[in-house]
C-alpha cells in the first residue's frame, strides 16, 4: 500500500475534507477550559483545532471503543431485553503508538473466547489515524516498554517530519488506503522521506524515557513470580486513596461495572456498563460483605500484577502497561508509577 507525503496545506485540506464528509472526526485538541495546556480527544470542527504535537491526552482514546458509560441492552422492566449496539462510523486522528498498542491489546481481549459485539462493533467502525510522538510527555516511558513505535492496528500512520510542515502518511489497510486517496494533492513519499521517518522512530525508541525500567518488559512476569509477599506493596499502598485514578486514566484497563437504570414511567430502561477500577474498595465485594481484596495493598498489587503478569498470559506475553505515564501523573500521592514499583522489586529480586 502507499506511502505519501503531505505538506502542511495538503494535510490541512485532507483533515478538513474528512470533517466535511459524513463521518464524525475526533482528534486531539487543546482543552479549552483547562488552565494548563492539557490535551484531550474531542470532535474536530476544523483542521486548525488538531494538535498532533500533543504530549499525551488526559484519558486515552479507548473511550471511543469502550465509553465511560454505554448502553448494552434496552428493556421492558422485568421483561424482554434488546441488545443495543452503537454503529456510528468514526475517524480517530492522532493516536500515539503506545495508545495504539493498548487498543490492539483490547481488541484481542474483547474478541477472544466470548466475542463482545458492543466493543467490537465500535472498534470495526473506527478508522484510526495513528501518529508518531513529536513531544515527549512528562512521564512517558514508552522506550522501556517497547511501545514507542507501532506497526499494526491503525489504518494510516502519520509522521511529522518537522514542526508540522510535512507529514509522511502510510496506509496499511484498505480503509486507510481509500481515505488517504482523498488527499489528492499528496505526492508519493521518496526514500529520503522514509529515511527521515525511520530516524524519528529510532530516536523515539530511545528518547521516550522519562522513567527507565531496569529490566526487559518480557522479564516482568518472572519477576512478579517471586514478588507476591514483597514489602513494597504495603510501603506504597499506605498512602493509596483507593481513588482508582490509575485505572481510569489507563489505556489498558478495561474492567467494568454493569447497572440497570429505569425511566420515569417505571416500565422501560437500559442496562449500562461503565468503567470500574480494581483499586476501588468494593471491586471484589460480595454478598455478606465479604471482600476478597479488602486490603489496599492487595488491590494495589493486583493492578501491577495484571499489567505485568495476568493480562500478558491472555495476550501472548505482551505486557499490559504501555508506558504512557498517565497513572504517574494522575496519582496524587505519587505511588502509582509501575516503573518505580518494578525497579524497587528488581533491587531485591532477580527475574
Amino acid at each position, binding site marked *: 500500500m502507499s506511502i505519501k507525503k503531505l505538506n502542511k496545506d495538503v494535510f490541512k485540506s485532507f483533515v478538513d475534507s474528512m470533517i466535511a464528509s459524513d463521518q464524525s472526526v475526533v482528534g486531539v485538541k487543546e*482543552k479549552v*477550559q*483547562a*488552565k*494548563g495546556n*492539557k490535551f*484531550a480527544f474531542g470532535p474536530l470542527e476544523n483542521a486548525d483545532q488538531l494538535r498532533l504535537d500533543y504530549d499525551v491526552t*488526559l*484519558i486515552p482514546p479507548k473511550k471511543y471503543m469502550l465509553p*465511560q458509560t454505554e448502553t448494552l441492552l434496552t428493556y421492558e*422492566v422485568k421483561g424482554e431485553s434488546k441488545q443495543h449496539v452503537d454503529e456510528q462510523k468514526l475517524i480517530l486522528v492522532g493516536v500515539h503508538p503506545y495508545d495504539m498498542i493498548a487498543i490492539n491489546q483490547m481488541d484481542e481481549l474483547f474478541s477472544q473466547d466470548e466475542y463482545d459485539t458492543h466493543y467490537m462493533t465500535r472498534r470495526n467502525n473506527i478508522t484510526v489515524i495513528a501518529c508518531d510522538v513529536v513531544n515527549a510527555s512528562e512521564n512517558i516511558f514508552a522506550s522501556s516498554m517497547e511501545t514507542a513505535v507501532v506497526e499494526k492496528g491503525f489504518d494510516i500512520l502519520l509522521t511529522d517530519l518537522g514542526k508540522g510542515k510535512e507529514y509522511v502518511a502510510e496506509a496499511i489497510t484498505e480503509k486507510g488506503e481509500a481515505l488517504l486517496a482523498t488527499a489528492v494533492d499528496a505526492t508519493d513519499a521518496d526514500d529520503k522521506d522514509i529515511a527521515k521517518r525511520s530516524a524519528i522512530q529510532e530516536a523515539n525508541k530511545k528518547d521516550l524515557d522519562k522513567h527507565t525500567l531496569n529490566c526487559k518488559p518480557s522479564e516482568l512476569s518472572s519477576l512478579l513470580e517471586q514478588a507476591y509477599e514483597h514489602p513494597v506493596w504495603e510501603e506504597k499502598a*499506605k*498512602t*493509596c*486513596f*483507593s*481513588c*482508582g*485514578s490509575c485505572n*481510569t*486514566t489507563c489505556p489498558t484497563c478495561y474492567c467494568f461495572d454493569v*447497572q440497570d*437504570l*429505569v*425511566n*420515569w*414511567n*417505571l416500565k422501560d430502561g437500559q442496562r449500562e456498563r461503565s*468503567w470500574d*477500577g480494581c483499586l*476501588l*474498595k*468494593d471491586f471484589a465485594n460480595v454478598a455478606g460483605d465479604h471482600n476478597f481484596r479488602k486490603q*489496599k495493598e492487595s488491590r494495589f498489587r493486583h493492578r501491577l500484577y495484571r499489567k505485568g503478569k495476568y493480562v500478558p498470559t491472555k495476550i501472548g506475553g505482551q505486557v499490559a502497561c504501555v508506558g504512557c505515564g498517565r497513572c504517574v*501523573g*494522575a496519582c*496524587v*500521592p*505519587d505511588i502509582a508509577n509501575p516503573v518505580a514499583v518494578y525497579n524497587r522489586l528488581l533491587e531485591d529480586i532477580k527475574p
Partner: protein
Amino acid sequence: MSKPRVAIFDFACCEGCQLQIVNLEEEILDLIGAVDVVEWREAMSEQSEEYDIAIIEGSITRPEDEERIKDIRSKAKVLIAIGACATTGGLNKLKNNFDDLEEVKKCVYSDASTMPHLETAMTKAVDEVVTVDYKVHGCPIEKAEFGSIIRSLLLGKAPEIPDYPVCVECKKNENVCRWEYGEICLGPIIRAGCGAKCPTASYRCFGCRGYVDDPNVNAAVDVMDKYGLTVDQLKSKMVLFGSKQGPTL
C-alpha cells in the same frame, strides 16, 4: 397497587435540596405521576399525617426538632435523608466547633438567651437521631441522582449509592487535576455521585457529599509535603463540610 404517598419535610437548611426537586422541571410531572405527594410545605398547602415515604431535608439543631423527626420516623415506612445538612450535618456542623453553645448564647443575648425561640443545640445529622433508610448526598443534591434513587426505590430495588471517591467521576470527565495547580482538592476522600461537578468547573472539591466509608486521611496528610502545603491548610478545607464527622484531623 396504589401509589406510594410521599411527604417532604425540612429542618435547618437553605432549602436548596427541595429546590432541586422543583428543578426536575418537566420530570416533576413524572414524579407526580409516580407518587402521591401528600405534604410539601414549600410548594403546597395540603398537609397529611399519612405517608409511606418521608423525605427529610436539613439538620436537627433544636430539642423540638428531635421530637418532630422522631414523630415523622414513627409514621414513615421509608425515611430518606436528602442533602448534606440531613445526611452528615453538612455545613451546619461548623457551629459544633464552638465548645459551649449555652455560654455562647448567654454571652450573645444576655437576658434574652433563655427565650425559647432562641434555643439551639449542637447540630445533628438525621441519622444521629433516628434510623435513616437511604441517603441522597450533596450540597445540594444532584437532581439526576435523586431521580434515579427514587425510581429505584419505586421499583423495589435498593439504590446503588457510590462508595468510591469523586476522582473516579472527575477522571472520566477528563479534568485536569486541581492538585496540579497546588489546590487542596478533597476529591480522593469524598464520596462520588455528583458527577465531579466542581472539578469539572475547574474548582476544587470541598467535600459536600461527605467522606467515603474508609477515607485514607493519613494519606492526605502525607501528601501535603509533596505539594508544599501544610496540614493546617488541609484541616481548614476539611472543616467546611467535614466538621465533627468521619475522620477529624
